């Protein structure tokens, strides 16, 4: 029933690669309690999209730029003691989204398909996009291999890791760059609103069945890949959007996983 047309192959190829890259990154995001931080940064990427459209260039570079600037602002704001960080994140998150939507819609007139930027357009992935996904994804994984141990140590205990010689600021800064690069790559596939779900939901689903961090990352990648296959199939057969379909399967698997773990623990 499903014919493997080129656009479909590209969709599978891009989404599966992203699933593999996002799983270890998303696990680290959860362990270091950066989910809301990641969400704020990823929604601010809409401003980068607007910037790209205004300049008439590919959106990848402006999205990376804007996400890094927003991440930098968040880090600076997290050091002030007047307003708690969650309030700052809430403010930035909605402020950036509002600004992004207004900019995207006002810059280029009615031609812009805002929905495709918010939720992604997985069947519009081009060959150039694929180069980005595979090239960028390979780079992210390579740096992540080096960053894995220090990030784990920071997740376990920041003070202890620092005392043992992990350079907290450098490690976190490099991690944020990786996060921003991944968001920029993923945004065409799953959109600004869903990209963080693509990162963290499979990791959440993998948690109850993982005894080690590495197993959790691998299992998260498998769950994400399965969700991609199921989601794209659903999308094709029922003519519903691809990105949300994938995230929906991720969420269902996560709910079943966490729910069953909670039930067995109580029993």
């Amino acid at each position, binding site marked *: 029933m499903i014919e493997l047309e080129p656009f479909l192959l590209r969709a599978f190829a891009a989404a599966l690669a992203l699933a593999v890259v996002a799983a270890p990154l998303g696990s680290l995001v959860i362990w270091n309690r950066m989910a809301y931080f990641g969400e704020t940064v990823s929604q601010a990427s809409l401003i980068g999209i607007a910037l790209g459209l205004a300049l008439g260039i590919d959106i990848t570079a402006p999205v990376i730029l804007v996400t890094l600037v927003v991440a930098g602002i968040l880090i600076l704001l997290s050091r002030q003691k007047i307003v708690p960080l969650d309030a700052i994140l809430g403010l930035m998150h909605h402020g950036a989204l509002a600004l992004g939507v207004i900019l995207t819609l006002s810059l280029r007139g009615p031609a812009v398909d805002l929905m495709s930027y918010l939720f992604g357009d997985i069947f519009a992935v081009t060959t150039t996009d694929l180069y980005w996904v595979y090239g960028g994804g390979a780079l992210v994984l390579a740096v992540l291999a080096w960053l894995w141990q220090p990030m784990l*140590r920071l997740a376990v205990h920041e*003070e*202890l890791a620092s005392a*043992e010689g*992990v350079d907290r600021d450098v490690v976190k800064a490099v991690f944020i760059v990786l996060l921003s690069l991944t968001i920029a790559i993923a945004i065409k596939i799953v959109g600004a609103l869903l990209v963080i779900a693509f990162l963290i939901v499979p990791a959440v689903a993998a*948690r109850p069945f*993982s005894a080690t961090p590495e197993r959790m990352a691998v299992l998260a990648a498998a769950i994400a890949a399965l969700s991609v296959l199921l989601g794209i199939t659903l999308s094709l057969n029922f003519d519903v959007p691809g990105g949300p379909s994938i995230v929906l399967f991720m969420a269902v698997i996560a709910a079943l996983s966490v729910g069953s773990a909670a039930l067995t623990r109580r029993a």
Partner: protein
Amino acid sequence: MTERPGEAAGPVGAAPAAAHGHSHAHDHAGDCCADHGGAGTRPFDPTALIGARGLKIVRSGRTILSDIDLDIHAREILTLIGPNGAGKTTLVRALLGLERPDSGSVRRRPGLRIGYVPQRFEIDRTLPMTVARFLALGDGARKHRIASVLEEVGAARVVNQQMSELSGGELQRVVLARALLNDPQLLVLDEPVRGVDYVGEAELYALIGRLRDTRGLGVLLISHDLHVVMAQSDRVICLNRHVCCSGVPETVAQHPEYMRLFGPEQARNFAVYQHHHDHRHDLAGEPAPAPSGNAPPGGEQ
């Protein structure tokens, strides 16, 4: 060269035998709060594992620590006590090199390895991590090393358990095991008995005492609660943004500054854990004849 009577850390550390003879009445004049004039000018003690001179730390306009002089030697347990907000953790961070002093300096013996057991060790439940994996994290310690160090701290049976499922006492032992993995000469423990029950507390202190004996460690112990710790300590520094008083446990517990900081109730509790006393102290720290055999010193005046 090693004997400097005016040093804030007190001469008793260099001569514990004299301290046990309770010939410490003279200590107070030099040790107490009033005397900080010449801080920062004394040379570092070459026999110390780690030393600080004239340490001052200011954060957001507040002076958190000032005029801190201290030395820790091998085979010595130094306990740092003080109320919440006294700057204990900041001082430890400065000694570990995590906090830059605004003036003064810290000197470590070249090649000094420090084992650090931080305060509040709570591992996030979303992070799956067995004890063995935690101990291997970073430099990748070998299996048999992990087993032997867990044996040493009496936590061998939790090796395959998840970190998030350990009890407070088990967790402290595991973190202690990690600190021991790189064969430290100095062990730094920040409030190690927090979240540990009463029996576990005494056992943990006994363990730290044994580690000092078997490994010849210098130990820096931070506490806001004096109880059992004192029996094992060679020296106590009472900190409240500056060194309020210091000396052997008995001296500090009777010191007016200590009484003022912790109140007479706490001071009495402390005394319960001392060895047999044949005398008691008055408030000025002068030995006075004991009213009866085992009565806690520093009681009613």
